[in-house]
């Protein structure tokens, strides 16, 4: 439905976007995720029409957007700071796009009332934006952008100004709202947790390029590269060299860990001698004072180097005999006070050969 084809944007010497291509389906909740400066906001502004592309093409329903000004595009934006007009009431704010579209006055009144019901703020019509709370402003900003049913709704870090509790509540509301209206959402955020929770698909961006586009669960368990593995969730990244290929397993050598077997990455064919990295999520590592090595497992001994008590889980940094540090995680699910290990306790860790994921 929205096609972005080889889009580049440069500001002087700085390349904000470098030949970015992606395809967003109708009705999708699509997220652009990345650290600040990765180009996600630039891309959003290009889609909205606030900025022009240097190269490439943006198509909406097969028609090029590039020659259209922002007001001509059937695309509305929810701004990071809401951008509610301070001199207009809530109703006037919401009526604004309808007025611009020359909708008849009675119809406007009706639509404003309806959308205010939808965002559960029917009694705020005659308030001014500065009389609203952050969450209320947020809902009005979304209502204003949705009221004349754009083809596409762009959301630029809309929840970043809210506190953690309210943010979670708004996330649920956003998911439900999107399901209800069925409009395609393009969401920009730097918060990976938010992206995983909200999206149908996520494009992870880094330095003006797209690192990977996938569903949240695929991104988490099978990252395509080190950047994605590291950016999403906690991860042990271990540099490795491929020793031998063939058979069910690949044999790799990791500095300080020696040689061990891993499952191959079905997407990528590694050859002998290739350098790569093993990504290992902390929750996939078994940790105990003593462990029996199961089949298909590798086992190491070490001691607790550091620990972070996080309430539901504790993160342990395990120092192996060779000095390599591995992060492991244990749920504090036993009843009573749980303090399983202390610093310098001798422990063993183990993981299945298919627990890790090999990236180039």
């Amino acid at each position, binding site marked *: 439905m929205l096609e972005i084809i080889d889009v580049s944007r440069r500001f002087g010497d700085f390349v904000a976007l470098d030949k970015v291509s992606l395809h967003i389906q109708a009705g999708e909740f699509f997220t652009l995720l990345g650290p600040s400066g990765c180009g996600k906001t630039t891309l959003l502004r290009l889609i909205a029409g606030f900025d022009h592309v240097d190269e490439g093409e943006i198509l909406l329903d097969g028609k090029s957007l590039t020659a259209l000004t922002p*007001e001509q595009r059937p695309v509305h934006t929810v701004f990071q700071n809401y951008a509610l007009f301070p001199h207009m009431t809530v109703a006037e704010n919401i009526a604004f796009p309808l007025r611009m579209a020359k909708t008849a006055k009675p119809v406007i009144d009706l639509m404003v009332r309806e959308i205010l019901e939808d965002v559960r703020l029917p009694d705020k019509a005659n308030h001014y934006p500065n009389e609203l709370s952050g969450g209320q402003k947020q809902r009005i900003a979304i209502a204003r952008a949705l009221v004349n049913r754009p083809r596409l709704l762009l959301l630029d870090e809309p929840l970043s100004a809210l506190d953690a509790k309210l943010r979670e509540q708004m996330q649920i509301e956003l998911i439900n709202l999107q399901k209800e209206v069925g409009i395609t959402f393009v969401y920009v955020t730097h918060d990976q947790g938010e992206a995983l929770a909200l999206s149908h698909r996520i494009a992870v961006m880094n330095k003006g390029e797209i690192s990977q586009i996938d569903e949240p669960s695929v991104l988490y368990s099978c990252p395509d590269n080190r950047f994605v593995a590291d950016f999403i969730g906690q991860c042990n990244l271990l540099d490795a060299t491929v020793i031998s290929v063939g058979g069910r397993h690949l044999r790799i050598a990791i500095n300080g860990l020696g040689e061990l077997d891993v499952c191959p990455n079905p997407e990528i064919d590694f050859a002998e001698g290739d350098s790569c990295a093993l990504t290992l999520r902390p929750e996939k590592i078994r940790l105990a004072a003593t462990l029996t090595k199961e089949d298909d497992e590798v086992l190491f001994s070490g001691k607790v180097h550091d620990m972070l008590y996080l309430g539901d889980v504790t993160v342990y940094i395990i120092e192996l005999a060779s000095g390599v540090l591995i992060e492991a995680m244990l749920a504090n699910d036993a009843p009573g006070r749980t303090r399983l290990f202390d610093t310098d306790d001798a422990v063993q860790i183990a993981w299945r050969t298919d627990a890790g994921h090999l990236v180039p």
Partner: protein
Amino acid sequence: MVKNSAYPSKALISAGTLVYLFLYLPLVVVVLFSFNDSKLNAEWVGFTWKWYEKLFQNGEILHAAANSLIIATISALLATVLGTLAGLAIHRFRQKWLSALVLGPIAMPDILIGVSLLLMFILFNVTLGMTSIILAHVSFCIGFVALAVQSRLSGMDQSLVEAARDLGALPTQAFRLVTLPLLKPGIIAGGMMAFTLSIDDFVITFFTAGVGSSTLPLEIYSMVKIAVTPEVNAVSTLLMLVTLIIITALSRISPMVLRQ
């Protein structure tokens, strides 16, 4: 933590109060003596309105006051329009030289502006009189209006205009429906500031007035030069009153402007 150096100490408060006294005492003296029934501004004799009565019979002063009002009104209107445009231009083009050109004269001593305007009027054969005064006032007021408008603009969230465009407004509609209403307090404040500056100005008027026309400050100057009389106190008191009223109105509209 309670006894913190970030609160004003007693010494600081007394020093500050003394400075306030320094600021207000002279004006209190002026007002007080305007009701004093003595020709000398020396000691209190008794209460009287007679200096005010005399004032309203003084044709020259009334004429000068009328001139001042006409000049201030016309130059405030012109300066508001031009200053708003200048403020928008500064904001739009973000050129350093442009803002230096428009705002620079604010930092110049009045006498230099007066002298250079005088020279320019002579060069262009502009007859000195009401017209030259108005032109002069417009030119030094533009900077202040531009400053008020520009500071309002730079305080304005740029995404508001983008939001308007995004929601389907043409550039002209976005300007008319979003930018202009948000600028209005700045424009009005700038205009009122121009009015007070114009009605109060002495130095620049002094150089650009020529012989025929006089304004209230010029009239006060010549009165003061000759002799100190309570009539001047009366004019001054009235003038303060007028300014006070304008400032109060101004602070109602936009408290921020006063603090710029």
